[in-house]
């Protein structure tokens, strides 16, 4: 607890007594405030690096109510924390999916045009043309229900009821052979038990060891033998937008 907050009852009392805000401020003993910048000389001209010592305990903001937080806090973690209350089966989800999702993602999650493919791609991750779908790539089912809830359908986000959400999530998992029984009911009680196959194949950033050889003395002379030869040209592909094809300003 900062000194500032300890002083607040006094300031409040002054306000109640009819004093102006300025007068209330004047009651605060400035030299002892945690809210006052002290190392003025140290911050002078700093434009880079670590932040200067700054006042804290400002008393800004107000308490958030449980209701306010509940309205915006929609995230779901792999351990199930945050799952909304609801239930649904893949069979029930098929109807929602066909009505709200299939136009972009295809009847079977195969993707229409350049819209994302949701299912398939098993065994392709180490190939020349990997297909990274919910079933082939995603590590956690929690990500699927979270993302559908917060961002889908595209253009009408946060519109599904909790039961529709569980049902359509179950349907996408069924398309990916994660849920095998169309009648299996997914709910906030059993959803966290779902495991996806590719989860063990993710590992934290290891560049500082796997790419340690990029920390080195730069070569300045004779860094490769023979003359450099052009082996690829962008113009051969010719997909760069030409003038007039991009956005214009007017």
């Amino acid at each position, binding site marked *: 607890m900062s000194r500032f907050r300890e002083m607040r009852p006094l300031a409040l009392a002054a306000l109640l007594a009819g004093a102006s805000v300025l007068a209330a401020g004047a009651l605060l003993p400035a030299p002892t405030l945690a809210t006052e910048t002290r190392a003025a000389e140290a911050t002078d001209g700093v*434009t*880079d690096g670590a*932040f*200067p010592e700054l006042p*804290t*305990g*400002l*008393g800004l*903001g*107000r308490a*958030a109510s449980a209701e*306010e937080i509940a309205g*915006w*806090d929609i*995230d779901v*973690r792999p351990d199930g924390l945050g799952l909304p209350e609801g239930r649904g089966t893949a069979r029930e989800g098929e109807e929602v999916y066909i009505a709200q999702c299939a136009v*972009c993602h295809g009847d079977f999650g195969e993707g229409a*045009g*350049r819209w994302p493919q949701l299912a398939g791609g098993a065994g392709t*991750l180490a190939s020349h043309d*990997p297909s*990274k779908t919910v079933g082939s*790539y*995603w*590590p*956690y089912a929690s*990500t699927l229900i*979270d*993302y559908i809830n*917060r*961002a889908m359908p*595209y*253009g009408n*986000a*946060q519109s599904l009821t909790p039961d529709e959400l569980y049902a359509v999530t179950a349907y996408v998992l069924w398309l990916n052979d994660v849920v095998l029984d169309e009648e299996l009911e997914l709910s906030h009680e059993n959803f966290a038990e779902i495991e996806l196959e590719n989860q063990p*194949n993710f*590992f*934290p*950033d290891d*560049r500082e060891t*796997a790419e340690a050889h*990029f*920390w*080195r003395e*730069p070569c300045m*002379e*004779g*860094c490769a033998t023979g*003359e*450099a030869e*052009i*082996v*690829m040209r*962008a113009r051969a*592909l010719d997909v*760069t937008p*030409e*003038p007039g094809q991009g*956005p*214009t300003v007017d």
Partner: protein
Amino acid sequence: MSKDEAGRNGRAGPGASRRTFLRAGLAAGGAALMGGRAAAETAAGNPANLPPNVPDWSRYLGDGVAVRAYGRPSEHESHVIRRDVEWLTASRESSVSFTPLHELDGPITPNGLCFERHHGGIAELNPQDYRLILHGLVDKELVFTLDDIKRMPRVNRAYFAECAANSGMEWRGAQLNGCQFTHGMIHSVMYTGVPLRVLLAEAGVKPTGKWLLLEGADASGMTRSLPIEKALDDCLVAYRMNGEMLRPENGYPVRMVVPGWEANMWVKWLRRIEVGDQPWYQREETSKYTDLLEDGSARKFTFVMDAKSVITSPSPQAPVNHASGFTVISGLAWSGRGKIAAVDVSLDGGRNWRRARLDGPVWGKALTRFYYELDWDGSPLLLQSRAVDETGYVQPTKNELRAVRGLNSIYHNNGIQTWHVMAGGEVENVEVS
């Protein structure tokens, strides 16, 4: 204008005529490659405006003050704009536009040209309706208004924001012809904002609080997990860029600034920060922004953007417009690990290197401008630049990256770029052996 006309107007010696001819040739042969620059560069000028004549702008009054209440660039710079590549994405609202790096100089990006990356289009927030909720493993769960945030102690810092997918289309080889498209998912501006740790101190993070969830107010509900160490180090809750309030497309009124880290984490239209004891594994840190390696495994939480550089001029959209002689090579270098220590330039595809000249401020985790001046003899060049940062990391070649990662990583391509400058000045995106 013909050579004769140029002569009659007294403006041209033999050299000028030759330049005029050269420019006309470029306009005819290379217009598609040169983008909008062609029109500006090939204009020989209107003789009526050239000495000894007196042009209209020297005789008649121009617009008065405040006619242009919010100023705009000269109409002659109308080609200096963001561009997109339609085939890249299925929808404009979840897509990217590119900064015209080839037309810019110095270390700061103008606000109206900063690349855009949205996942649900531009959220148009009314600042009176802006709220930031801070909750979870804190002593006091709080709601802040924009006014609350503006009352907090603030700092000014320039940082680059680089999309993790910048240069991502180039993993398999030279594809897009221009540094706007190969390197333009980046901008660097001066932010004004509140250190995130000042905000967190208002709520009081509990000792069990190890990760933060950052969430945007747009229709994609953009979310990322951020380790508490980074949150308490140099992150900003920012509301101004280059002095003015953020542009709507850059997160108006409040966005995250996560210095040195992939720009996906710089959540725009920031509406919620939750403190938790583990990461959330949201869509943007599982399905996306994970880096697939050749064996089918994938890196996660590849936050830092490594040292990188690109020559912005000459480049495919900014060809050399003189046959030979004194030539300025201009480029940008940056590193998410700190300050740029040096930039080297090669004219021969990486066989030999010479140190470039850094000019202007060298801020940590911000764009740094470099120049290399030479007397070009007009023969073809294979131009490259190579950044070195203060940790001793040396920007690798694309093939060195591919040797570790394969071809399917999509993100974090910081390999050395090669431009083929042809005799005549035309420039192409190439790869060399």
